[in-house]
């Protein structure tokens, strides 16, 4: 069965296809630059909060790595951690248990975090909505290109969004679908244009620096719950030392 080809005006390429791509790339660049400018510089955490987190981390690593200790060392440290985790010595701040829950909302730290989240979301959604409206307004129902390879019918809803012709060959792409393809496919282009590898390196460096749990932040668990849970974990810990029979092990690995 040979269906006659749909003849596409070559001018479509210059006036619809490329403009959509260019606009999206430029707006994407603009957006990431504005987000960068809006980003608040990373704030230094108070030393008390850091102390609390680091202590929790120390307790947690005792839990996982206690095999490097001998039996006596293990017992001494176990008692120490249980005692400290059950006291309030390492709390960043001691809270009233019967505090008004509404007062949390006026906490400045909380507000900052919420504000940052809101900013990020706004910067993500507004430009996308604007471009989509623009494409829909000017190029609604356009068939902009024909793919050079055949596809199955399953791609119809993806490639021919916004055209009400159920029998059209799947190889034709509508303008709004081209917009979506760009939306998801332009990430590598951005990282190429903005030197993404360096940014990634910075990002991973920051993540390495603070693998600390988020205590008492928005949505985070409360410190006393965490400390109690950790104390219980340590209470039931059993100990096996890595030095048990180590001489035999080493000698064996050399076949002596």
């Amino acid at each position, binding site marked *: 069965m040979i269906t006659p080809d749909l003849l596409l005006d070559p001018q479509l390429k210059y006036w619809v296809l490329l403009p959509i791509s260019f606009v999206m790339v430029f707006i994407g660049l603009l957006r990431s630059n504005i987000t960068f400018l809006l980003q608040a510089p990373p704030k230094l955490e*108070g*030393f008390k909060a850091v102390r609390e987190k680091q*202590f929790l981390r120390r307790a947690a690593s005792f839990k996982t790595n*206690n*095999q*490097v*200790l001998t039996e006596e060392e293990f017992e001494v440290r176990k008692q120490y951690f249980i005692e400290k985790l059950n006291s309030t010595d390492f709390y960043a701040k001691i809270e009233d248990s019967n505090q008004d829950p509404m007062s949390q909302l006026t906490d400045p730290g909380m507000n900052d975090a919420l504000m940052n989240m809101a900013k990020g979301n706004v910067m993500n959604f507004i430009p996308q909505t604007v471009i989509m409206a623009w494409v829909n307004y000017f190029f609604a129902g356009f068939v902009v290109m024909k793919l050079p390879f055949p596809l199955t019918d399953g791609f119809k809803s993806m490639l021919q969004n916004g055209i009400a012709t159920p029998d059209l060959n799947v190889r034709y792409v509508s303008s709004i679908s081209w917009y979506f393809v760009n939306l998801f496919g332009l990430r590598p282009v951005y990282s190429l244009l903005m030197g993404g590898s360096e940014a990634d390196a910075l990002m991973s460096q920051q993540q390495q620096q603070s693998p600390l749990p988020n205590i008492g932040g928005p949505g985070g668990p409360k410190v006393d719950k965490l400390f109690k849970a950790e104390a219980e974990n340590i209470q039931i810990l059993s100990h096996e030392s890595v030095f048990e029979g*180590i001489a035999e*092990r080493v*000698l064996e690995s050399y076949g002596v």
Partner: protein
Amino acid sequence: MSDITLLKNKLLLVASSGAFANFSPEQVKEYNDELEHFLLVSTDSLDSIELFNLYELEFYLALISKNDIKAKSVLDRLLDQFGSNKKSQRIKLLQSLFLEATGERDQATKLLEKNPDEMLLSRRLTTFSRNNDDEKDNEDYIYNLIFYLDLQPSDLVTWAELGDEYSKIGHYDKAIFSFKEILLQDPYAYPVFYKVALNYYYNFLQEEKNLKTERKDKLVELSELLINARDNALRCIEICDVYAKSWLLIYIISTHKFNEKLSKLDSVKEIKDYLVTNERLRKLSEIKISELIPEDERANVLAQLQLK
């Protein structure tokens, strides 16, 4: 892979590992020249992280080699290119070092204690209580380190510093505690296992010197220190079997005179096991040492193991 990339990797490794802090003066000079030449030729090919690290290295080397003018100019360059928000603790740390080195200790102190949340700077502040002339007089310093560790319980570098300070004044049990604290958070840090072993061994030497009686329970107590030293050295070997110093320690322990005294205590099970494996460990470590350490360096390394 071109030579220039190899050189870059090496310099970056030196910068990030901090190896320059233990360089001999010859090495400082050599690296100073090498780095200067490298930066002259290929600054453009570096990304900003690499550039920062290398400038930092250049600053340290210049400061150590008493080239204050160059150190100042590197510092200004760092501030120019990276210090836009004036908040970087790393740059402030360098500034304070410069002030300290040029004798303006008060100003350095002022810079460091401005904000208690800047822990990197508070850490540097602890070193101001160190007696730079007599390393054994470090009571204040240890007190400050402990205070800092109470605030930052998982700062491994400070634990290592504390361990070494204790080791200097012969508090080997406390040194071992500090090093074990590192191992708890980094259970594969084999050089630290070696340090633990070494401190157990020093502890043993210290106790042995004070040993007056030949009573059985005393000897068992001492043998425990020796066994612990051996076990930690073996753990280091287990993770990294080219760690020559650790093999040497095993050899020394297995050939120690004290083992003869122990042979009378065959009835205790631990000691019997220890003596049986000792002989085999001696042979193995002899082979390994002859593989790893060249003949002419052996005496030198041995001398380092003596109790100071």
